[in-house]
Structures are given as C-alpha cells and as structure tokens.
C-alpha cells in the first residue's frame, strides 16, 4: 500500500484506477479523493465494480493506476459475507484475532449496541443476522481505525435493524472522527447516512452530494446506459 505525506488533509487519493479480471474490464479509469472524517457511499447497479473497487483499495486484486492512503492510516474492513457456520468460534475469540484486550472488546461490543456480557462467549454461528452485522462492525472498530470500509453492511438484516445499524454507524463515525466508505444499493440509505455519493458503472457516472442521488436525472445516470464522465474535481 502507498501512503501520503502526514500533512495531507486527504485520507485517500485514487487516481486513474483500472482493474481487469480474466481479461474483462471491471473498473475503468476511476479517480476520486476523500478528506478525513467525511463519508462517501459507493453506489451503482450489480456488476458495476463496487466490491472490486474495495478489493483494489485493500490491495486484494491487481490494478493499474494509483491508490494512496493517508500517513499511518488504520483501515477497518467489513466484508459482505462471512463463513462461520462450520467454525466453532466464540465472539470473544473472533475479536481477539484483532485486539486481545478484553476491555477493548467489551467497549466495541457496547458501542455497537450489544450486551457485551451476554454475547461475548456465544458462538458466532448462533448469532442472528442483525447481531452478526453488529459483531462485524465491532470487529472493524475494536482497534480504533481511522477509516471504515463497509460492503453492504446490512445484508441479511430486516428493515428496522437496518435503520438502527446505519444510525449507530453514523454516530460512531461522527463521534470518533472516522472516515466512512460504504457500498450500498439502497439510495434512501445513501441519502440519509452519507455525505457524498460516487456512482460506478465500471467508470464514474456520478459524483456529488448524497442528497442528490434520489434526483430522477441522477438515477438515470446511475442506472441507465453508462456515460463515463471526467470528474477531475471529484473530492469530498
């Protein structure tokens, strides 16, 4: 990973990022940057390259272009899917893989709205969808990250819990001045819980304030035929 100068205000700068997998162009020439403490939602139709963008940011796939993270930035990542059904592992053991301090674990669980005493010794495989997503958020924040990357953080969660999780996430990021990068297909959620939105359809097709994503013209941009745009000034 490449890191920026400590004096830089931006936590992430992405320039001319392109990703090809099995000779297929998944992301084409994407450029954007994010200031510390702001939140950016990545939106777009299925197959638009949203998850691949995250994977490139985390250095999980080969890419062309430049990805620069802020100096000494600590990244917390929560994937869309975990395979825990067949693994006998408790919440405490899972969190200890990242931070062994019991006090930090309990604090992280409490801050995501879970009763730490009641849940810490439970097996991950027995948790409900909502509990699991909260434990995953606790995993992401247990070592006090500067940036959180969430890929559809409420997959498999009912609507009420979804609102509650996003509300809690917003509070957490504001309180701890965490920069948030979020993938979501739900434009209502994007409008309510992020400052800015970047729409992908291989290339950047929209970039602007999240409140504008519900605009019919914007929606046509996001979900219609892709018209790639130069967002040279795309920053938050």
């Amino acid at each position, binding site marked *: 990973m490449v890191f920026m100068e400590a004096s830089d205000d931006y936590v992430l700068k992405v320039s001319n990022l392109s990703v090809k997998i099995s000779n297929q162009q998944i992301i084409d020439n994407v450029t954007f940057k994010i200031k510390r403490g702001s939140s950016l939602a990545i939106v777009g139709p299925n197959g638009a390259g949203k998850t691949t963008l995250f994977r490139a940011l985390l250095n999980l796939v080969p890419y062309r272009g430049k990805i620069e993270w802020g100096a000494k930035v600590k990244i917390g990542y929560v994937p869309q899917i975990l395979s825990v059904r067949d693994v006998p592992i*408790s919440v405490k053991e899972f969190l200890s893989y990242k931070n062994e301090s019991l006090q930090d674990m309990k604090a992280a669980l409490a801050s995501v709205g879970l009763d730490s005493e009641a849940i810490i010794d439970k097996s991950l495989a027995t948790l409900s969808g909502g509990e699991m997503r909260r434990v995953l958020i606790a995993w992401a924040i247990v070592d006090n990250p500067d940036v959180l990357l969430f890929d559809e953080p409420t997959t498999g969660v009912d609507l009420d819990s979804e609102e509650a999780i996003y509300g809690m996430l917003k509070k957490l990021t504001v309180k701890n001045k965490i920069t948030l990068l979020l993938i979501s297909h739900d434009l209502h959620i994007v409008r309510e819980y992020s400052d800015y939105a970047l729409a992908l359809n291989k290339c950047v097709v929209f970039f602007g304030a999240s409140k504008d994503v519900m605009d019919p013209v914007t929606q046509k941009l996001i979900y219609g035929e892709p018209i790639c745009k130069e967002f040279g000034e795309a920053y938050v």
Partner: protein
Amino acid sequence: MSEAVLYSLVVGATVGLAAGYLGSIMVLEKMALVGDALSHVALPGLALGVLFNFNPLVGGFAFLFVSAVLIWHLGRVTKLSFETLVGATFTLALAIGILLFGDNLDALEEALFGDITKVGAIEAVVAVIISAAVIALTRLIYRKIVLGLISEELAISKGISIARNNLLYLLLVSLTVAVGIQITGTLLVGFLVVTPAAAAKTISANMSRYLLLSSLFGAISAVSGILMSSYFNILPGPLVVISGIAIFVIVIIIRWRKKFTY
C-alpha cells in the same frame, strides 16, 4: 510392561496430541480425506528406505514433503482444490510403493499397518521433539488459517499470506503423518488427524475447547489402542482406530442426549 510398549506409549501420546491439534484445522477446512489420502503418499519413500537400507520413516517423510510442496504448487497454478490434487496423486503413490516393495511382504505389511515393537528410545525422543515442534508451529498459524476460513478477504486485508500458511500447514501434516506411521501404518494414520477432531467439533462451541478436546481424543485413542495391542498381542493400528471411533460414538451419544448446539 516391556520397554518397547512404554516407548510406543510415549510416541502414541505425543503424536496423538499433535495429530489431534493439527487435524482440527483439517476438519474445519473440509479436508478430512486429504489427511487420509496424503498418508498413502509415504509408501514409496518407506519402500526406498527398506530397499536401500536407511530409516524408512526418513524416506516416507521425504516423499510426503515433496508431494505436499508439489500439491501446494499445483493448487496455486491450476486453482484445483487440495482434495482433487491429493486424490489424483495418492493412488499413484500407493501403486509405486507396492511395486517397489515387490515380494518383501513383511516390510510391506509393516509399512501398511505399523509395528510398535521396533519403537525404541531414539524414536520416542524424536516423536516428542517433532510433536512439540508441530504443536508450536501450528499455534503460530492457527489464527491466521481460521481467519482465512471465515473470510479470505479479512485475512488478506490483515496482511496474512494464505498460500504461505497453507504450505507450512501441509508440511506439518507430512511430518506428523511420517511419525504417526510407526503406530498405525500408512493405511490408518489418516485416522489420527481426522476422527479426534471430528469428535471434538461435535461438542465444541469455541476454539479453545475444540483444540483441547481434539488433542486429548487423539492422545487417548493412540494410548488405549497401543495398550490393548500389547495386551491382546495384535497390530496396534486397527485398535487405535477402534478406540478413536468408540470416543466418536460416545461423543455423538452425549450430544444427542444433551441436545448440544452451537
């Protein structure tokens, strides 16, 4: 109790512990058959040891080691699963092994089913050292492998090299299998890395308990099998397996009675 039995018990207990500990990963990775099949790969190495008059276990380990590296490399290049690659190679190894043994049927029987009467002080010391090393090294990579199982992305994003850990893991399996062959022989040694872990997983809700029970079940199976073998004067391998299966059945009954869930 004769000296040979005493040394065999030391080998059985330590190798059983190490195999149970290591095998717990194998069961989580759904590679139970890999452990079983990989053990057969040692046969040509054992045969070469007998033919050229050097310690057959060294030959067995060399074959296991080379096969493990080859399978690991092929897995990376072809993206085929370990299970597929091991399945493709183990029958070939078995065939070559049997051909190399030729008409030396006593040596072949010993390689296939083990012979604890040949276990002495040196073998016992080597088993203790190797088992301790296997447990220590497995402890180092355990969390990384489990995290990779839960989410490959989480593991890689934490800077964990899944391929490197898998290679080390395969080498540790080779080492444990090579030492375990003395007790059960190549045909049954796969049992030691699979069944104790399978029994432990049935009644474990967390990793600490799973690892502890898996190691204990491995050691108890080996020790009780060897004790019965010396008492009834028959081959230890099948009795080790039967002891382990008895533990597995008891565990299933406990789970059924207590309606254990995790």
